[in-house]
């Protein structure tokens, strides 16, 4: 019954109605994936969380009209009230306002981090997997070395070299993600490279670069997308970790990790100062991880959820 319905529903667009735009084949594949994703309640929950954060980040000035960094020492460490729904910190700044503006910082950092990871890691992984041989060997040994450090430790070491600040935070966490992308992409390329259609592409005389771009990269996109979603969560966590230690984004910029770090001293008297930024970090990371897991299940052609 269900399948019959689907068939009739698909027919009109299966024909040649759409001459431009996405051809019917991908559309139905894409829809299948989307439907699978929407059926996964946890993934939807994660998606809603992230969407919430994105809306918050974009409309921060509307949601909190004041300056989140302006101190007001007369009102420091206030409990949640009507005026300051999440209370104020030791300098009397609204914690809600700082969390709202902090979402901008955190999302920017995580976007920057995965961009660095993608831009460096994906090309290197493609080259390593496609060409093999000596290039592969050297790249993989370097990757081994980088992967031998726990990611956070590597980011920490890089901050120690580069210095504190938002740009260096992005660069160091980004570099700590590069080896993960290299490994992931290389592994996928190795399996795609053995496909007959790649051999066929070689046999029609397609240049290497074109084979990589047209035949290999699109076929390894799914794990890259999943890794990127999971990586955004990790990036937020790492950035917060660096902020907490005082070597990430510097005050007075509102950053969740730094807020958590400064609130730590008041945990017994004014627990709200540390609790709410911690909750913000927790929900953001949870959102990205749930969405990433959902994407993995939805885009995996073998899973039949």
């Amino acid at each position: 019954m269900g399948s019959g319905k689907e068939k009739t529903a698909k027919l009109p667009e299966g024909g040649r109605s759409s001459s431009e735009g996405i051809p019917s084949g991908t559309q139905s594949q894409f829809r299948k994936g989307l439907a699978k994703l929407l059926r996964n309640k946890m993934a939807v929950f994660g998606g809603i969380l992230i969407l919430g954060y994105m809306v918050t980040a974009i409309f921060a000035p509307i949601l909190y009209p004041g300056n989140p960094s302006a101190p007001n020492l007369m009102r420091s460490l206030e409990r949640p009230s009507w005026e300051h729904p999440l209370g104020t910190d030791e300098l009397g700044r609204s914690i809600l306002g700082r969390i709202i503006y902090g979402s901008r910082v955190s999302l920017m950092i995580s976007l920057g981090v995965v961009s660095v990871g993608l831009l460096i890691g994906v090309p290197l992984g493609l080259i390593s997997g496609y060409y093999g041989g000596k290039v592969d060997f050297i790249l993989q040994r370097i990757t081994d070395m980088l992967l031998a450090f726990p990611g956070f430790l590597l980011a920490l070491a890089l901050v120690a070299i580069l210095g504190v600040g938002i740009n260096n935070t992005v660069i160091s966490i980004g570099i700590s993600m590069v080896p993960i992308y290299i490994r992931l992409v290389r592994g996928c390329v190795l399996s795609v490279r053995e496909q007959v259609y790649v051999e066929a592409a070689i046999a029609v005389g397609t240049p290497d670069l074109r084979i990589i771009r047209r035949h290999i990269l699109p076929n390894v996109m799914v794990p890259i997308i999943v890794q990127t979603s999971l990586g955004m969560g990790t990036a937020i966590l790492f950035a917060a970790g660096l902020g907490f230690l005082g070597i990430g984004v510097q005050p007075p910029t509102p950053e969740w990790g730094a807020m958590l770090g400064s609130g730590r001293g008041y945990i017994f008297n004014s627990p709200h100062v540390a609790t709410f930024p911690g909750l913000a970090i927790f929900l953001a990371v949870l959102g990205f991880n749930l969405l990433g897991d959902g994407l993995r299940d939805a885009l995996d052609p073998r899973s039949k959820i």
Partner: protein
Amino acid sequence: MSGDHLLSIRNLKVRFRVYEGVAAAVDGVDFFVEKGETLGLVGESGCGKSVTAMSILRLLASPPAELEGEIEFQGKNLLELPQDELRKIRGGAISMIFQEPMTSLNPLLTIGEQIAEAIVLHQGLSRQEAWDRAVEMLARVQIPSPEARAKDYPHKLSGGMRQRAMIAMALSCNPNLLLADEPTTALDVTIQAQIMDLMERLREEIGASIILITHNLGLIAEMARTVVVMYAGKVVEEAPVRELFSEPLHPYTQGLLGSVPVIGRKFKMEKKRLQEIPGIVPSIFEMPRGCRFHPRCHRMMDICRLEEPPMVEMGQRRRVLCWLWA
């Protein structure tokens, strides 16, 4: 017309240096292909047919493959050609059809895009012209409503349709030589016949030569003009197709032909069982001394165990690698 060789393979050796040792997959193969002819390359699995075809376009990854000898095509030795010139020949003058139509198309590109890709690469046409040409090629391989099919992704097409699409791709640049590596193995019999008809017709239209690799002797009988029989990396017999079937010289060829079931034959009293070649193909790492076929040969002589047999020329494109005829 013996001077009209499109492709000559001379003393081709392909070795794979792997962990277990050195595998000599092809060991001193030579044959030539005339213009416009279909040459059948037959033999058991693992005898080196596909490796021979792959080495013509240098498609084997090296390492581990090591190639030696000479493959002359239009006056050039393909084994020594620089990469960029080789790339022009691949898909241009020589194209290839693969064994598995189900996996030889990229699932993320439409059929039309994939055919157009080869055309853009070799004929320098614009995207739109190449697309039109791709649609035209799809029509020529008798795919119904080619405009719509060109926009489809491979998963929507059946195996026979995909193989047609592959043929369209292979023929889109009017190749001089088509390498067909078991083009119909994965297809059912009626589709097989259609595909072979199609290839034959297109061969005549374009005037290309075909190297048809198969273990289907029926196909060879119908399609090929000359047949090269391979066993364990060597050419053991070459003959015009009629002569091969009427009078096979090598005991291996005789065995191959004898092992084809003929409907109705079992009613003859003298032949209750289908004939077979006893034993199995020797391991690629431990080839028997002397003639490689001797452990399985029913006419084995003492000398076969000791010395490699000579290639005996028996006439126009007729030769056999066997002590029986020396």
